[in-house]
């Protein structure tokens, strides 16, 4: 499957012209089973890409491979021209379905702050590094305001609702102004309105900073208007392209290896039926 190069958004002024992520012929084996193979994907600065597919199809695995957390069985993955490795400072990451337990009594602000300096050893000198401490505080405050979490950022994170926690985690991923945002179902615990709001927010930040976004989603409704391309994973294989190219009866049937039908409803939504996984509803407001 040829990736469609549709670099959108303002990805200029950062001196890099190559892709943010380049996956070439990659395969991952876990527990003696090949999760997916022959995966080719190029992600360009400013692109907003959704990773779709049924449960267990390897979406999280793809994110983890790009983060350098999993070894590849074949092929290669490079991030900003270097082989994928753990701890790449230019990647912001929100893992899948995490909730802080109610007894975690640390302020949301501190959790966001850890994204900025949590990897640093030693403690800042209280008076000598005043200036830097202030600029860090400002950066944290700015990103908290940009995700609309200012009202509850000073409460213990364990006491916040799932959606409030999710916004703070997105802020944590954004706070270093990464060139790649890897978000594993970040909209998962938000209501529909908030899903759209947060998706729009991520889209806006990606446009402003030229960051590329890889976003795993189950419900693609709220993000379809923001999407540039989709990566559809099923049956150990991957299809990459615009939603109009990939979410079709033909492509998905080939992917699943069994007949799948994509129905277009009169209100513009798309329904995928007949595949062995689950029902998925695509609201297609581009039609």
């Amino acid at each position, binding site marked *: 499957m040829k990736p469609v190069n549709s670099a959108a958004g303002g990805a200029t002024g950062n001196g890099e012209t190559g892709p943010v992520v380049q996956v070439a012929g990659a395969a991952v084996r876990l527990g003696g089973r090949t999760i997916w193979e022959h995966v080719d994907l190029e992600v360009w600065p400013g692109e907003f890409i959704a990773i779709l597919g049924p449960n267990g199809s390897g979406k999280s695995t793809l994110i983890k491979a790009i983060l350098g957390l999993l070894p590849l069985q074949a092929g290669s993955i490079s991030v900003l021209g270097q082989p994928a490795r753990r701890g790449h400072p230019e990647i912001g*990451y929100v*893992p899948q379905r*995490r909730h802080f337990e109610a007894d975690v009594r*640390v*302020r949301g602000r*501190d959790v966001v702050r*850890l*994204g900025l300096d949590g*990897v640093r050893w*030693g403690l800042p000198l209280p008076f000598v590094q005043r200036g830097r401490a202030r600029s860090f505080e400002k950066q944290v405050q700015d990103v908290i305001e940009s995700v609309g979490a200012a009202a509850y950022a000073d409460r213990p994170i364990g006491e916040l609702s799932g959606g409030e926690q999710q916004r703070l985690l997105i802020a944590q991923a954004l706070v270093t102004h990464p060139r790649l945002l890897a978000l594993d179902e970040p909209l998962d615990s938000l209501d529909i309105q908030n899903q759209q709001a947060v998706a729009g927010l991520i889209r806006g930040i990606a446009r402003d900073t030229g960051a590329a976004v890889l976003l795993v989603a189950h419900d693609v409704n709220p993000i379809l208007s923001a999407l540039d391309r989709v990566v559809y994973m099923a049956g150990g294989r991957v299809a990459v392209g615009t939603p109009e190219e990939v979410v079709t009866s033909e492509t998905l049937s080939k992917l699943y290896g069994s007949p799948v039908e994509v129905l277009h409803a009169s209100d513009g939504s798309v329904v995928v039926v007949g595949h062995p996984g689950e029902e998925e509803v695509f609201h297609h407001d581009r039609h």
Partner: protein
Amino acid sequence: MTAIDCCADGAQCASGSCSILQCAQNCSAQIQSHFISPFGYHFMQNAFLAGTLVAIMAGVLGYFMVLRSQSFAGHSLANVGFAGATGASLFGAPPILGLFAAGVAAACGIHYLGLGTRQTRQNDIAVGAIFTAAIALGFLFIRLAPKEFTVNIYDVLFGNVLGISDANVLITAISAAVLLSLLVVSARPLLFASVDPDVAAARGVPVRALGLGFLILLALTVAVAVQVVGVLLIFSLLVTPAATARYLTPHPALAVGMAVLLAILFTWCGLAVGFYTPYPVGFFITSFAFGTYLLVRGAKLLMARSQRTRLANSVLA
């Protein structure tokens, strides 16, 4: 209780039923006033010094332990430490050494068997069985130990803060220095790894190595804290101050500071009251800790309730 029974030697006094003050008075030739300062006695100086150092260590490490939901691991280290302390007596080694060695072994066990994480709380029963076995082993060691090396079982179980030798004060001071300097270096990555291990790992924090390092530091803290409160009362310094501090503030640095202050306060109050009454110091430290915890939790509950009623009233109005 006759005057002869009461001697100024801290170790004997602590297990006797007379007050330390009484002991001190009876043994001191030049008592002029009715008020005796606890600081006038060497064993009390040692007690305050070691107690303060232990309180600082326990306060700081306790914060992280509670944050990581590893109080069970802390308890396990103390229980295994009991076998270590009594086992050391088989060879005439100092109990503190046995405590630390057994604690490190237990820390490695907990780490490599993956028992120290939030997700594996269901292993509690298996771990509990193992640690009961460790206590039984320690009990056996007490009987096996040669006469000249026997340890006082009460000292290991409940601590003997009034019988801390100069050498042990020095060991405690060195431990505190090592622990605090390591924590200053690793505080932020450790906080990151404790609050948010998945993201921390992806960002390059050595989460697993920090987890093991933390358990070893916990073993060190337990080993020195046992001198003050014993393996059974160790939570009064390790958990209660940190748990109370967490309810007072969600700010990590402030909470660590408060946990330390509370631990020091409980220790000092316990020592002071223990000095003037015939009852053991460990009891008072634990009671002050528990009382404060109850007070803070109760106050928080009341505040939450009054807030709810106010909210409900304002909605109705």
